[in-house]
């Protein structure tokens, strides 16, 4: 079920009403049933995969907790992690690696004829598999006690607000909340609704509008160059941010209405001053997952520089692969890993240059330079994330600035809105899209001082309601209501 669908508009209020009517002891059953239904609206048969995955997780975690011998315990954990990796690997990566192996075989004259499977990628498999793996490792590390009730564990994994695209919740943060009694709290419920509204604004008004421009260029990149790539890629940067953070806002807001607290997933990432900081602000639940379960076990930063660089690169290559079974995603991860290594190794030099140039005397200006340059690198890396193939990504990358100077020189005679900029859309559509992005940046600048929702809640009703009404009607009038799928659903 999509958050931006009429179906969810009926489903969610129904669940909320039933949830607060029911006595506390039955509420988790309602949430479990609602979550099963939420998932089964897509493909009912795929729920079996989750049920089996959670069954192994449940049995394994309880067994791990009982075993006293550390070697046996570790072996069991490894078996369970291999099981989950196999599950994810089979559905998500088998075809990719098989295809690569076929290519390699042809090159070396080997005989290899394993055909690809035609199974659909189960919705949210990357998310619920990672959540289950984190739970197992946390039980192994004795950070959480194993859940005794299989169905409650199932609810923790498939809780509908975070089921298909996260946040990837830790058991220590979410599981106990299913035991707590949540009373109807006006502030919490209304703030949750506001967050849902803001998420819908980001998704429908910004992401889905930007997608129209982006799709034109990225579906036929060889027909474009220069300024078209700049427009489409900058818009993609906002599309993917608003699409995914919009989803997270709706997820967190929906959970909040029901009384649950999900972890923050985005913290104004495009205001990061370095790639390292970007990853502290972007998809936080995933980056902390990789930090806790890959990067730190590899040695983290308490090692020599070459080993640390290796740890970073491995972590980001895996992160890239997690996003999709394609070389484009692996390259995207590698770019981010490399940039973090470069950032660290050049830190002293960059500081010296800033002092020599006198930029460090103007910290605000210096910060803006850092923000803009980080945004530039992140945006360039999105080319690889969005392109259909490495060939197309390279074409876009190598033609990114072709003719840019000519475009700007020609503005006085040709005007700003040339066909290369409008990409077949009207100037009005262009202005609305960038206007909405400007509004987003304005709101995020305001958020530097604290939560805008809390800021608004403190204002009298005659001041805040007109703002809510305007945002509501902006969503209705400016939103793209095509029930477009969220980008991260395919990960």
């Amino acid at each position, binding site marked *: 079920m999509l958050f931006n669908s*009429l179906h969810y508009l009926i489903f969610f209020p129904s669940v909320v009403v039933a949830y*607060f009517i029911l006595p506390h002891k039955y509420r988790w059953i309602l949430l479990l049933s609602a979550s099963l239904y939420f998932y089964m609206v897509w493909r009912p048969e795929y729920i079996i995969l989750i049920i089996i995955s959670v069954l192994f997780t449940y049995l394994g975690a309880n067994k791990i907790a009982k075993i006293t011998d550390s070697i046996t315990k570790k072996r069991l954990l490894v078996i369970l992690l291999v099981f989950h990796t196999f599950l994810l690997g089979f559905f998500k990566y088998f075809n990719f690696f098989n295809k690569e192996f076929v290519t390699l075989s042809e090159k070396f004259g080997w005989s290899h004829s394993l055909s690809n499977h035609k199974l659909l990628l189960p919705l949210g498999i990357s998310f619920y598999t990672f959540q289950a793996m984190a739970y197992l490792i946390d039980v192994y590390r004795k950070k959480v006690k194993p859940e005794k009730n299989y169905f409650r564990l199932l609810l923790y994994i498939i809780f509908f607000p975070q089921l298909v695209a996260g946040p990837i919740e830790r058991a220590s943060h979410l599981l106990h909340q299913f035991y707590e009694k949540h009373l*109807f709290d*006006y502030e919490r*419920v*209304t703030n949750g609704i506001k967050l849902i509204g803001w998420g819908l604004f980001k998704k429908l008004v910004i992401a889905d509008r930007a997608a129209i421009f982006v799709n034109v260029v990225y579906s036929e990149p060889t027909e474009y160059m220069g300024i078209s790539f700049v427009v489409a890629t900058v818009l993609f940067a906002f599309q993917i941010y608003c699409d995914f953070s919009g989803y997270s806002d709706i997820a967190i807001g929906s959970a909040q209405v029901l009384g649950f607290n999900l972890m923050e997933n985005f913290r104004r990432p495009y205001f990061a001053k370095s790639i390292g900081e970007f990853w502290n602000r972007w998809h936080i639940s995933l980056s902390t997952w990789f930090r806790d379960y890959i990067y730190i076990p590899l040695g983290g930063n308490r090692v020599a520089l070459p080993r640390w660089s290796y740890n970073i690169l491995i972590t980001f290559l895996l992160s890239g692969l997690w996003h999709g079974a394609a070389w484009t995603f692996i390259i995207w991860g590698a770019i981010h890993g490399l940039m973090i290594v470069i950032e660290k190794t050049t830190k002293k030099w960059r500081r010296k240059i800033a002092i020599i140039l006198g930029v460090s005397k103007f910290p605000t200006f210096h910060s803006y330079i850092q923000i803009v340059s980080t945004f530039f690198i992140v945006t360039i890396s999105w080319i690889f994330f969005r392109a259909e193939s490495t060939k197309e990504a390279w074409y876009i990358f190598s033609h990114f600035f072709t003719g840019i100077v000519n475009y700007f020189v020609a503005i006085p005679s040709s005007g700003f809105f040339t066909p290369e900029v409008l990409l077949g859309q009207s100037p*009005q559509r262009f202005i*609305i899209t960038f206007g909405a992005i400007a509004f987003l940046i304005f709101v995020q600048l305001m958020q530097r001082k604290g939560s805008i929702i809390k800021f608004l809640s403190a204002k009298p009703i005659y001041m805040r*309601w007109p703002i*809510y*009404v305007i945002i*509501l*009607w902006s969503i*209705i*009038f*400016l939103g793209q*209501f095509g029930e477009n799928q969220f980008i991260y659903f395919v990960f």
Partner: protein
Amino acid sequence: MKKFFIHGIIFISINIFIATFYIWFTNNQYTYSNSQTGSALFIIPKNTKVDILIMGSSHAGIFADAGNHERVEKILNKKVVNVSKAAAGIVPEKLFLEYFFRHGNSTKEILYIIEPAIFYSSVWNESNFFLENEPLYADFFWLSLREGIDNDVLVNYLKSKFSLFWATWRKPLKNNIETYSLDAVSNEAIQKRLNFLYPDGQNEIVFDKYKVKLAEVIDIAKANNAKLTFIYPPTLLGDAPGSERLTQEISYYEARLFDFTNEIIDPSLYSDHDHLNTAGVVRFTTDYLVTIFSSNSSTISF
């Protein structure tokens, strides 16, 4: 919880008020003549007697477009209402016909410019866009609901009103006197057009589904004492696939049908291979429609 419900009700009421005002405003901001809008509801009058009601898809729409409505009225010397809509099959057209009579209107004659293609695909009968350029009238909405119009069409009808497109698009169109003229007939263009008109091929099950609506249109005409005439419009496409089947169906109800498919073959009277241009409309009205509306016979030789 009480505070939440009170605030919720007030907030929803404010927004319903805004929505109602907006709908009222956009429904009444402009007045339209038949040749100024592609919307059928905007031009359906109330408690009015007219001489002829024209219905159909784009083949009927050309009798209203580009100032043709006034030309046709002048040639026929009759008051005409044209409720046609581009790409509209028998399902939406039946709805407009019913709405016309429910509004206290009457007509002596109904001219349904019909083509077999509309009976062979849901695209022409159940697509979401049918009501997109129609104003939101509560009585029409309920009528559509009662008639069993597809839920997606109705949801889209509501949703389409709250869009920038609807808020900015409804200005009366200027009479576009420019008329295109076809130079020559192209077999490739004909084939392309036929492929477009029959996206699902010729499925008899689909035909049977929509032929029920044909009977209902005939019943509505009878119930309102209006003489119903079907015509196959002139076209350069040749005999339309399924025309024999449709002719058989119309004959079953003993309704008046005239086939003008191959009557006008001069390409210069067409704007494309399937639609007459203004000169073609004038010629056809003068040479054929005048005769049709001055005779009661079901067999007229032209």
